[in-house]
């Protein structure tokens, strides 16, 4: 390891170099318009309106005025760079990684860093943000780091940034997993990737990208595959634009040299909430799904579209809105009380060491020795709050924001949004005690074209890299016909999620730990 002082000097020199270059040499900026063609009224874009009808009925479309403006605008900024994380055996591990550059307070609290324009465009005031933020500074700030009034344009808040706070916060501030994102169907999502460079690898001039894995009918332009699109260089920002796709559990990652950048830690989570969450409590879910069928963009007509998964349910129920759901099920069968994103990953410490030390990396013999849930191995998975890791600049950086403790209210249902971005092998996660009900796979509800739900119970799920599924853990042993719980699991009980790949219950040389966490009934 290089000396801290030397690094600090190098760090300062690089920062100086970047900010003293002509303005054109860095091109950081963020984008978060307060209104768009799709969401024309700025005042309505800072909250999710109730879903009372389709955006367009029939085959109408732009430029016709929408019948109902659904969804809102969401924005997020992330850094692409490097950093360090702490493994379950205490080892400090080098990462190529994304870090938060907006929603810092929410990310630190284990929440998605995705914000409405009114929050994202709030300017920071207070003591300068410090390296290692948000833990070192920032308090409750959730806006875009670096955004300042544009003096050349009447001090407008238009995405113009001061690069200094971005470099202060973003350099060597990577997280594993990468910042959590969550959007609602019908939202427009502006995701700005700011490439701050990898300070430990000055030999690299690497671009980074965001691949939104599973986005249906994607454009290659915003698909994040550098071979098929563009990739942003160091010292600049690129804003990805998505209309929120169909509800489900997706994930995202860098797509530059994937065996390297994914193994090194550039993996994150994103999920899309269904418009059924916005159906008023007075409306039946079936009627609301009938409304969705009126708009060809949100309809699922099995006879005409082979790639949709939520036709009207075969059995019509009187379930009404007002809860949280995984999908637009039309029958309330995907309702849940609490949700937890869980990302499975693996680190090969040899590859990470080689990746930090300028040596050629081998791919064929890549062998993971750390098995991670949300970037942590047991027992770190049950440590509350974010983890920090001292990095090569001698500063403690915010490194692993997400614990994996599953707290389920007795008698309630927990949704586990499980994804896997392992680069080497399949991993199995089993539930000891509480059965798993699988209700969706690869961001699609399990329902046949005739409307029959195909959910199934199991005690383990197996995923390879690039797969996701939705599991409900029901903390209720007996439910009445109306769905109320008559025999809940006991408050205070602890259950386990662990891997039956028994060699994965280890933290490198420690024969203890690995892919495991706890389920608490509260």
């Amino acid at each position, binding site marked *: 390891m290089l000396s801290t002082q030397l690094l600090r000097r190098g760090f300062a020199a690089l920062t100086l170099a970047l900010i003293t270059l002509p303005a054109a040499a860095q*091109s950081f900026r963020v*984008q978060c318009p307060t209104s*768009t*063609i*799709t969401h024309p009224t700025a005042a309505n874009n800072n909250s999710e309106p109730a879903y009372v009808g389709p955006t367009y009925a029939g*085959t109408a*479309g732009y*430029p016709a005025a929408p019948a109902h403006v659904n969804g809102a605008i969401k924005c997020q900024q992330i850094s692409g760079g490097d950093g360090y994380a702490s493994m379950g055996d205490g080892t400090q591990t080098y990462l190529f990684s994304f870090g938060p550059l907006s929603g810092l307070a929410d990310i630190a609290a284990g929440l998605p860093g995705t914000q409405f324009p009114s929050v994202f465009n709030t300017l920071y005031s207070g003591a300068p943000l410090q390296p290692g933020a948000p833990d070192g500074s920032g308090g409750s700030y959730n806006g875009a780091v670096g955004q300042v009034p544009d003096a050349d344009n009447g001090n407008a808040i238009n*995405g113009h940034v001061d690069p200094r706070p971005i470099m202060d916060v973003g350099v060597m501030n990577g997280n594993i997993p990468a910042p959590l994102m969550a959007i609602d169907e019908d939202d427009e999502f*502006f995701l700005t990737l700011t490439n701050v460079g990898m300070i430990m690898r000055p*030999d*690299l001039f*690497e*671009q980074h990208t965001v691949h939104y*894995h*599973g986005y249906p*009918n*994607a*454009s*290659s*332009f915003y*698909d994040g*595959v*550098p*071979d*098929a*699109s*563009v990739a*942003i*260089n160091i010292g*600049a920002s690129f804003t990805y634009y998505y*209309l929120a*796709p169909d509800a489900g559990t997706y994930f995202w990652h860098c*797509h530059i*040299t994937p*065996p*390297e950048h994914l193994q090194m830690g550039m993996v994150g989570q994103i999920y899309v909430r269904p418009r059924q969450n916005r159906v008023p409590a007075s409306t039946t879910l079936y009627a609301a799904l009938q409304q969705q069928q009126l708009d*060809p*963009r949100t309809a699922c007509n*099995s006879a*005409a*579209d*082979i*790639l949709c998964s939520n036709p009207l349910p075969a059995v019509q129920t009187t379930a009404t809105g007002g809860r949280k759901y995984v999908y637009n099920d039309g029958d309330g069968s995907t309702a849940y009380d609490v949700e937890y994103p869980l990302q499975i990953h693996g680190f090969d410490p040899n590859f990470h060491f080689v*990746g930090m030390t300028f040596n*050629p*990396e081998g*791919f*064929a013999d890549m062998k993971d020795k750390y098995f991670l849930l949300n970037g942590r191995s047991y027992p770190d998975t049950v440590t509350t709050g974010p983890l920090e890791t001292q990095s090569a600049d001698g500063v403690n950086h915010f490194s692993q924001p997400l614990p994996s403790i599953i707290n389920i209210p007795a008698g309630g249902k927990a949704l586990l949004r499980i994804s896997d971005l392992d*680069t*080497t092998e*399949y991993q199995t996660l089993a539930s000891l005690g509480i059965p798993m009900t699988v209700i969706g*796979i690869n961001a*699609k509800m399990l329902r*046949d074209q*005739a409307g*029959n739900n195909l959910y199934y119970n199991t005690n383990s799920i197996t995923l*390879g*890299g*690039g797969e996701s599924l939705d599991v409900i853990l029901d903390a209720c042993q007996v439910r009445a016909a109306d769905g109320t719980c008559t025999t809940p699991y006991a408050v205070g009980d602890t259950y386990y999620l662990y891997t039956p790949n028994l060699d994965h219950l280890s933290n490198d040389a420690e024969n203890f730990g690995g892919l495991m966490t706890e389920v608490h009934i509260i």
Partner: protein
Amino acid sequence: MSPATMKEAMSMNRLLALVMMGAALLLAAAAHAAAPGIKGTTFNLTAQPAYISQPDGQAVYSWGYGCTGGTPGSATFAPPASLMPGATCPTMQVPGPTLIVTQGATVTVTLTNGLPTAAGNTSILFPGFQVTTTNGVVGLLTHEAAPGGTVTYSFTASSPGTHAYYSGTQGDLQVEMGLYGAIIVLPAPVPAACTAGLHASNLTAEAHWHESDFRLAAAAYNHARSCYDREYLFQFSEMDPNIHSQALAQVTARGNCAAGAVGCSLEVATEPYHPAYFMINGRSMPDDMDTNYAFQYPHQPYNGNPHMHPGEQVLLRVIGQGRWQHPFHEHGNHVRILGRDGNLILSATDPNSLAGPLLFTTTTTPGLAFDGIFYWTGRGLNWDAYGHNPASPDPNARLACTPDANGYNTGAPTAINYFEWCQDHNKPLQAKPFGDVAGGGPVTLPDPNLFTNGPWFGGSPYLGPNATVRATGPTGTTPPSGTIANPPTSEAGFAFMWHSHNEREITTNNIFPGGMLMMMLVDSREFVIDESN
């Protein structure tokens, strides 16, 4: 640049050189896959050794099935040789010849063992079929062909769909060495719905642009929800080069030993297993994107280079032929699994409805075949993927979009924007007008100097040469550099990477990129997808 990326650059340079050198091969000829094979009821196959080529320059000693005598005999090439001139069935190939048969037919496969004597017997298993064997010698799982001998298998092609065939003798070695292939059973009859409506309309569009129909059939099963407009077959396998070099060394050492003599056998260690090559149809990227039957790969005739137009229902026939599972990620959309190993998955309450899952990552499992349907339409992007501009002087920028009941422009099969998603027609993407693309949209694109272009980048956020040439510059004449594999002026498709998501498998013997990786292109209608070679 890290050593890994240096490798990437070297490898990409090699690829670029290949592309430029071989414009006639990769671009002008632009062969785009199909699911080629030999069609009939009687097949005479030989198992024999040869060397297969990998993109790191290695020639790997392998065993494969091929056509006895180098001709398909009474079988014929499908698609027919009139559509795919240059089709061959060499005496050894990996994967083996794709056997195309019709449901209900009695299929006879005679296998001749042309492997080195020391390799011993060999055989073929046809999982999913009731096989009768004649001749040959009794083996553990089926009758086998002794060195130099033959064995005949016959069965009724009972269930339509894609199936695997592979060696049933010492499979840990023989399948690893390359003794595997595919059987496609075409449904009889094909449902009427598959040749009417949008499927007929798609054929009209193909004919208008002088594209040929390369399908083996119009449906994957006897079911109206299994219709398709284009098809591709991908067989996934991996190779541990150490096993192959051991086999070669031992075969060489045994020389012309007599079958059955003491010591006339191989003791190749097949564990521990460290594969370094990860292949689709016997080729690693970028070789898989060269043409079918390319002369550079005399023993690896099949490619993996899918193309499609918006709205086409594309049938994916995928088989796991190695010993590992691979999570095959199709960028761009989900895949509806129709069936596995020829078993169509239907709703328990409605035989007209499908019940297979929708997946964006389709696991390939050893010995398992699946059929799935993929399409791409651009629905829900919230901007006009063709960059139409009603104020443009260019008539192709002002095309109409007349929605059908599902919102697509399907009434005009000869139009460039056939199957456009109409709800977003003319809806701008970019905040400021650029070139001949209207402003007013939600996003500002960065200065092109700030980003790096990929070789398959079409040159703009828009689909098709018309849109890209209009969008690439204020003058419309300065397409971006580096987009050579998908040129802005002639193709400008949307390119999507289809690859194993156990990402280390997109390498070739430790070099990235390589392995189980291909680029799928969604091409605008004016680009002619030519599946011949």
